[in-house]
C-alpha cells in the first residue's frame, strides 16, 4: 500500500496527524507517529522567534507521541504501574482534545471566511465631519513643526528593531532520528552490548537523548537490537543482534508507508 504524503500542503504536524488519522482507507496501524515527532522537532528548530512556551508545547506533544509509539512497539508488561498508566492516559487525552480543537477551529475558519465575504459587500460610511464643522475640531497639529515631521519620517522608514530574546542558552536541534540511526549502526556492532546511559553519557542536550532513544526503537523494530530493562527507571541494556552485515540502508525503513 502506497500513498502520497507530499501532495497536499499540510499546515504543520497537527494537520498531518489529523489527516493521517482521519483518512479512513489507511490502516491506522500504519500511522507514523515518528514522522509527526520529527515534524515537531523541525518546527522548533525553524522557529523565527524562540518562544519557550511554544517550544515547550511542541516538545510535550512530541513526547506524548513518543510514549504512545513506545507502548505499541514494546510488548505489554504484566505489572503495570498505576500512576504511570494514569499519567499516560492524561497526556493522551490532552493530545486528543487538542486534535479535536484543531479540527473544530478549522471548521470555524470556514464560517469566518464566509462572514468576511458577506461583509465585504458593504462599505462603511467613514467620511467624518465636513468643513462646516472644522472650527470645532481641536487642532491636532498643535506643536507639530516641520522638524518634528522630518524626524517622524526618518523614524518611520527605519527598520523596526526586532524584539529578540537571547538564544545563547538554547541549543538548536541539529540531529534527526535518521542521523542518530546512522551513528548507532556505525558504532553498535563493534561494541556489541552497552547500556543506554553509556550511549548517551556524552550528550548534554535532552532532546538529543530523545532522538537517540527513538533511533534505538527503530532498530528494535527492525530487529537489529535487543532491549532489556530489568527494573522501572533502570538502565536499558542495548544488545546488537543485527550481525556484521551492513548491507542495508538503515534509513530506508524508517516508518515508511509501504505496507
Amino acid at each position: 500500500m502506497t500513498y502520497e504524503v507530499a501532495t497536499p500542503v499540510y499546515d504543520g504536524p497537527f494537520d498531518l496527524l489529523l489527516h493521517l488519522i482521519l483518512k479512513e482507507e489507511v490502516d491506522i496501524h500504519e500511522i507514523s507517529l515518528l514522522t509527526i515527532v520529527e515534524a515537531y522537532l523541525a518546527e522548533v528548530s525553524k522557529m523565527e522567534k524562540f518562544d519557550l512556551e511554544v517550544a515547550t508545547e511542541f516538545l510535550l506533544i512530541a513526547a506524548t507521541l513518543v510514549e504512545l509509539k513506545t507502548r505499541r512497539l514494546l510488548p505489554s508488561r504484566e505489572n503495570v504501574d498505576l500512576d504511570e498508566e494514569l499519567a499516560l492516559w492524561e497526556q493522551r487525552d490532552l493530545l486528543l482534545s487538542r486534535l479535536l480543537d484543531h479540527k473544530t477551529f478549522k471548521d470555524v475558519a470556514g464560517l469566518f471566511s464566509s462572514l468576511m465575504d458577506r461583509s465585504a459587500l458593504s462599505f462603511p460610511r467613514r467620511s467624518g465631519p465636513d468643513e462646516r464643522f472644522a472650527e470645532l475640531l481641536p487642532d491636532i497639529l498643535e506643536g507639530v513643526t516641520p522638524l518634528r515631521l522630518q524626524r517622524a519620517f526618518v523614524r518611520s522608514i527605519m527598520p523596526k528593531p526586532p524584539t529578540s530574546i537571547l538564544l545563547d542558552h538554547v541549543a538548536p536541534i541539529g540531529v534527526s532520528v535518521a542521523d542518530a540511526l546512522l551513528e548507532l549502526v556505525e558504532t553498535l556492532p563493534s561494541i556489541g552490548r552497552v547500556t543506554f546511559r553509556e550511549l548517551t553519557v556524552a550528550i548534554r542536550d535532552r532532546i538529543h537523548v530523545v532522538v537517540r532513544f527513538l533511533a534505538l526503537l527503530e532498530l528494535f523494530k527492525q530487529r537489529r537490537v535487543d532491549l532489556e530493562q530489568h527494573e522501572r527507571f533502570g538502565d536499558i541494556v542495548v544488545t546488537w543482534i543485527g550481525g556484521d552485515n551492513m548491507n542495508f540502508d538503515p534509513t530506508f525503513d524508517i516508518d515508511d508507508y509501504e505496507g
Partner: protein
Amino acid sequence: MSDKESDVAREDVEIVRALEAILMVAMEPVDPSLLAQLLEQPVAVIEKLCSGLADAYRSAGHGFELVKVAGGYRLQSHPDVAAYVERFVLDSQQARISQAALETLAIIAYKQPISRGQVAAIRGVDPDAVMRTLQARGYITEVGRDDGPGQAVMYGTTPSFLERLGLESIDALPSIAEFVPDARVVEALEQGLRIVPQASGDTEQA
C-alpha cells in the same frame, strides 16, 4: 394611533433626524450610549429608533443601510449594489486572508484571552508570523498578561475584527458546540491515539 402616541412620534422625528445627521459624520460605529447621551434619550429609545430607521431604509429600498456592528450603529452601502461601489473604491483594503490566518483568528476569537503558546498548542505550528500579520491588520491585540509564572502576553480580538466580520459583538458568533467534530471523527482520533494495542490478532507495525 392615539394623539398621545402621535405626539411622541412627532418628537421622535427630530431625534431621528439628529441620529441620521450624526451617523453621517461618524468615522466608526457609534455606541448607542453615546447617542443616548448626545440626544438626551434613554438607550432603549435610541435602540428602538435606530432599529425603526433601519427598517424604514430597507422598505424605502435605499442603496444604503443602517446596521449595528462592533457594538455601534453605522451607515454602509447596501450589498446589492456592491458591484458599483467596488468600481468606485478600487483600492479597498479588504485583502484576502490566508487559511492559516483564518484558523488562528478562529482560535483567538473563541479562546480569548489566549497566549501565543496556547495558540501554538492547537495549531501545531508556530503562529508568530501569522499573529503579527493579524495584529498589523488590527484584528487582534494584546489584552494583558497571564498571571502565571511566565506572564505570557495574552491576545484578544478587536472591534475592527467584529467590523470585518460584520458582527454586532463577539457573542453574536455561534456557540463553539456547533463546530465540535462528530462522533465518527472523535472515534477515529481515539483509535489513532490508542494506548493499548488492538486485541485482535493482527500484527502491530506502528
